[in-house]
Every structure is written in structure tokens, then in C-alpha cells.
């Protein structure tokens, strides 16, 4: 069996599972946020059971439109907050909250071998910790909150092998964009993407989170890494929970095995309006931009903030361009502050915000006007995703985003040297 199949089998009381099989899976953690929880709560109440299956296995995070962007968002956040208090579930208020997929691993709430379901498509992020984590809708989450179980169809696994030593400015964002560029936005539809190879072993945990996070952008159900020394080092001090290290068998059956040479992959830029519309940075051409966003559940972790700061240090944001930096959690913010990174951004003329999903989904804190172009470290560049339908989003890694902020056009960090 594959790593994913072993986790699912262990959570449905079976010795083996095979792709295509329908199973009822026990959940270790159930997540929702300020825009998906209101519907989940409504459906939960329809069940009439009165209580959640285990308050310590349910998390709600006000991150999408919080701190509240308008009255309606405030109402939704309030609805969620009151439910969280009443049922004594895990909840992070503004001031301690961060973007859900940044803080759940950070707080040690996910361990290898877990099954995590969340009413947010980027729940797949926790695959970096060798958990089976997947996004669902609010009704599914309501059922999981009430019963601690949810139905799943066992997905096939596609194995991705990355060989070789990547270039200096190439990281997890580039590997995943490159992959989506090759296989398409439905290239891994209904499937698990398992990331392996020496280039993956060399990746930091923050970079692995970025890759697992965007598996959904290829239609994937999960994006998973096996446990190694880096995973263990990350978990140390965050959790005392015991965990099982599952591993794919040498003879595991994969739907396909795809190999890439990491040394040949340049920093990638996904052009409007699909994450699969990628080009290597050398072929981007001259595209002037109006805004840069550095942050999100994809690239809002300390490694990302450090990388952007390293590129922008001592430089100025291009005149007339807005550069918005959003650390993904209070801890990321504080660590960046201690390391002097926040000062670097502010001296460069960038705006730094409290954690929020904000502009990534066109909520607030950096909405685009008609005709404006933005380089963003976020995960989607669909029509209208960050504002006006006639605005454009170019997805890139934090180094490219920072260099573009300085030069006022889409550019790689090498051009700044």
C-alpha cells in the first residue's frame, strides 16, 4: 500500500484499502473558518445531536475576513466565536490567530498519520507532516464535527520524484507550480500526490508545506510527504502526541510515477488565469506591475518572509507600486520582528499587516482595480480572484515577488544583484 492508503486503512479499521473503495474514516482533527463555519454550524444544528464528538479535535480559525472587514463578516465571525465558546472547541481569537494552515502545524495540532478534514480547500497543507489531510465542504465538516467520521473514496496515488540539486532561488513554490504547469489543473484530480526524491528530502518543512498546500491546484485530494529527520525536528517541542510513521511499501501500486530533474527547474511564474499557466522566469518578458503580495497559507511562513527580506534588504519598493507583506501567524510575525525582517520591509516602503487571508481571495487588504497587475505568492490566479475581473494575478515564489516589488516589473532576484 501507499503511505496515504495505510493512513486511511488505519482510520477505517481495515487491514487494506484499495483505490475506488468507499470507506468511513475516523477524523483526528476537523477544521473550519469564518466563511465556511457558518454553513457548517447551520447543518450541524439540523442534525439535532446537540454536541460535537470531541471538542479537542475541532478547530475554528477566524482568518479569511478577520479582523472583521465589514458588518456581514463581523456577524459571521461572531456566529462562529459563539459556537466555539459554547462547545469549548479549539479557537484562536484575533491577536493570537494566524492563517489556519500556518498555525495548525505551528501549534502542534497535526502529527504524522493523522486524518485531518477541513472546510477549506488548502487543508491539504498538512500532508507535509505525513498526515492525510483534505478539504471538504461545510456539510461534510458538520457531519465530522458531530460524529468524528466522514465517508471517503480511497484515492489512487501519483508518485512524483524530484532528482538533483535545484538552483539558488528555486524552492517548493517553483516545484509545485512547475508540476501543475506540466500535469494541468486537473492533472491529479481525485488523486493523492506523493512527493519524493532527494530534492524533496533537501527541502525545509516550510517549503514542503507550500507544495502540499497547492496539491489542490492540480485537483489533488492530498499532497503528502513521508516522515524524515526534518519532520521530526519540526514536531519536537510542538507536541507530545505519539504518532505512527507510515511509509509507502516498495511494491506499492501507483497510478503513475512522474520524475522531474530539479536542477533544470527555474523560478516559475503562473500567468493569468490558471495556476497551470506557468513560464520559467527567463521567459516572462517585460510586464509592469502595480502590486505585490507576500504571504498566505501558501507562502506566509518564516522561511518565506526571510527569503523576501533577503532580496528586498537595503532596496526600495518601486515608486507607485504597493508591496504588502502578511506574516501567516503571530509567531511568524514575532520571529520576523526579532530577526529585524519587519524593519527591512518597512524601510523598503512595504506595508506589513497582521495575519489574514485578506487579499488572496479578494477579501480586503489589497484588492485590485480594473487593469491592475499583481505578483503574488498566493495560490490562485483565477479571474477576479483578487479584485476586479479585469485585474491580473501572477503567482510566484517570495524571492521573485520581492525582486518584482523593487523593479516594478516581474523579475527574478538575480536581476537585483
Amino acid at each position, binding site marked *: 500500500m501507499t503511505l496515504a492508503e495505510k493512513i486511511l486503512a488505519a482510520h477505517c479499521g481495515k487491514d487494506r484499502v484499495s483505490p475506488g473503495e*468507499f470507506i468511513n474514516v475516523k477524523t483526528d482533527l476537523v477544521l473550519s473558518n469564518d466563511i465556511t463555519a457558518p454553513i457548517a454550524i447551520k447543518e450541524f444544528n439540523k442534525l439535532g445531536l446537540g454536541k460535537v464528538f470531541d471538542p479537542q479535535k475541532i478547530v475554528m480559525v477566524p482568518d479569511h475576513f478577520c479582523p472583521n472587514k465589514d458588518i456581514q463578516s463581523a456577524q459571521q465571525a461572531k456566529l462562529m466565536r459563539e459556537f466555539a465558546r459554547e462547545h469549548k472547541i479549539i479557537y484562536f481569537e484575533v491577536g493570537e490567530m494566524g492563517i489556519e494552515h500556518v498555525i495548525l502545524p505551528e501549534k502542534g495540532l497535526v502529527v504524522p498519520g493523522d486524518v485531518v478534514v477541513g472546510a477549506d480547500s488548502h487543508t491539504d497543507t498538512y500532508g507535509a507532516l505525513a498526515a492525510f489531510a483534505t478539504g471538504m465542504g461545510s456539510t461534510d465538516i458538520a457531519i465530522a464535527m458531530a460524529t468524528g467520521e466522514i465517508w471517503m473514496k480511497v484515492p489512487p496515488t501519483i508518485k512524483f520524484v524530484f532528482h538533483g540539486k535545484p538552483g539558488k532561488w528555486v524552492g517548493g513554490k517553483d516545484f509545485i507550480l512547475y508540476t501543475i504547469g506540466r500535469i494541468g489543473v486537473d492533472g491529479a484530480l481525485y488523486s493523492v500526490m506523493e512527493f519524493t526524491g532527494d530534492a524533496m528530502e533537501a527541502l525545509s518543512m516550510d517549503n514542503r508545506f507550500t507544495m502540499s498546500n497547492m496539491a489542490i491546484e492540480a485537483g489533488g485530494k492530498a499532497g503528502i510527504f513521508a516522515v524524515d529527520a526534518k519532520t521530526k525536528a519540526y514536531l519536537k517541542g510542538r507536541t507530545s502526541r505519539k504518532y505512527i510513521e507510515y511509509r509507502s511499501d516498495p511494491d506499492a501500486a501507483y497510478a503513475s510515477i512522474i520524475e522531474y530533474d530539479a536542477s533544470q527547474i527555474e523560478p516559475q511564474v503562473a500567468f493569468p488565469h490558471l495556476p497551470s499557466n506557468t513560464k520559467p522566469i527567463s521567459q516572462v518578458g517585460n510586464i509592469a506591475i502595480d502590486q505585490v503580495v507576500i504571504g498566505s497559507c501558501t507562502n506566509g511562513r518564516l522561511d518565506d518572509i526571510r527569503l523576501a527580506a533577503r532580496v528586498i534588504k537595503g532596496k526600495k519598493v518601486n515608486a507607485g507600486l504597493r508591496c504588502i507583506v502578511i506574516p501567516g501567524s503571530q509567531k511568524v510575525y514575532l520571529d520576523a520582528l526579532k530577526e529585524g525582517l519587519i524593519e527591512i520591509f518597512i524601510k523598503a516602503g512595504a506595508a506589513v499587516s497582521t495575519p489574514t487571508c485578506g487579499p488572496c481571495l479578494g477579501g480586503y487588504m489589497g484588492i485590485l482595480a480594473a487593469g491592475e497587475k499583481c505578483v503574488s505568492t498566493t495560490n490562485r490566479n483565477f479571474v477576479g480572484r483578487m479584485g476586479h475581473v479585469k485585474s491580473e494575478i501572477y503567482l510566484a515564489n517570495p524571492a521573485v515577488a520581492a525582486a518584482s516589488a523593487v523593479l516594478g516589473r516581474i523579475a527574478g532576484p538575480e536581476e537585483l544583484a
Partner: protein
Amino acid sequence: MSLKGKVHKYGTNIDTDAIIPARYLNMHEAAELAEHCMEDIDEEFVKRVQAGDIVVADTNFGCGSSREHAPLALKGSGISCVIAKSFARIFFRNAINTGLPLLECEEAADNIEAGDAVEVDLAGGRIINHSSGKTFTAKPYPEFMMQIIAEGGLVEHTKKKASGAR
């Protein structure tokens, strides 16, 4: 159950931001969401749509975010079902859970045009294009999902299971 209406036709990778832009996710009632359904890719949809109408699309319909607001907005608009070559995974679950029927049928997606009058017999998965006279058969649902649909969605299915266990 028979569903009948005019067709609204779209292409590949219709994402959930297109179905209901995130700026409206500060609301969650189907009727409110319906007022903005599809507006970023088809401004006229809201004015044109009639109860019973059918959306027909190419591959990967509903990709992107997990927002259940997407099938709710379509349902609130009066859309009776969606026919596509394939559906994104989370959207598929959400549609089943919220009671928006989906039909996977490559042939139908290729041979139905915008404005065609189409009728769908859900039980048999039969799709009839009255405008062209052609009929198609959709891929049947797995038995497990048919049961959820027959019981009126996942909440009802779970309630039934819970009362059975008592």
C-alpha cells in the same frame, strides 16, 4: 425525477470563484448568493436564468475553493442540475450534500449548445436534448452515493444512521 430547462453553457475549469466570487462570502443564504452567481464570467446569467435551467460545461467544473456557497448559489438561481465532462472533487461532494444533481457525460457536454431545451431523467441518468433530438446517458453514481441522494443528502443520511444505531 425529471428536470427540464434551458441550457447555460460554459467551458473548462469553471472555478468556484467564477461561480460565486469570494467577495460575497460574507453571506451564506442561497437566495443572497444567487444574486451574484456567475457574475464575473457571465454578467447576464442572473438576468437570464429561469427555474429548472441546466448548466452544461466541459472538464473540471467547480475547481478551486471548498466553498459550499458555489452549489448553493447555483441552486438558489434555480439551476436544476449541472452536466459536465468532469467535476472537481470537493465541488462534487458539496453538490451531493446540498442536493444539486450532477451528471458526468462527455457526449452530452459536446453536443448541447447554449439555449438548448434539455430534459434530464435523474433515475436513469438520461439526458434528452429537445432542440436537437439527441439523447445521452450519464455515468451512473456509485451505489453508496445513490443512497445518500435518495435519503435527501448527507445530513438526512447521517440522522437516519444515528437513529438506527440507537
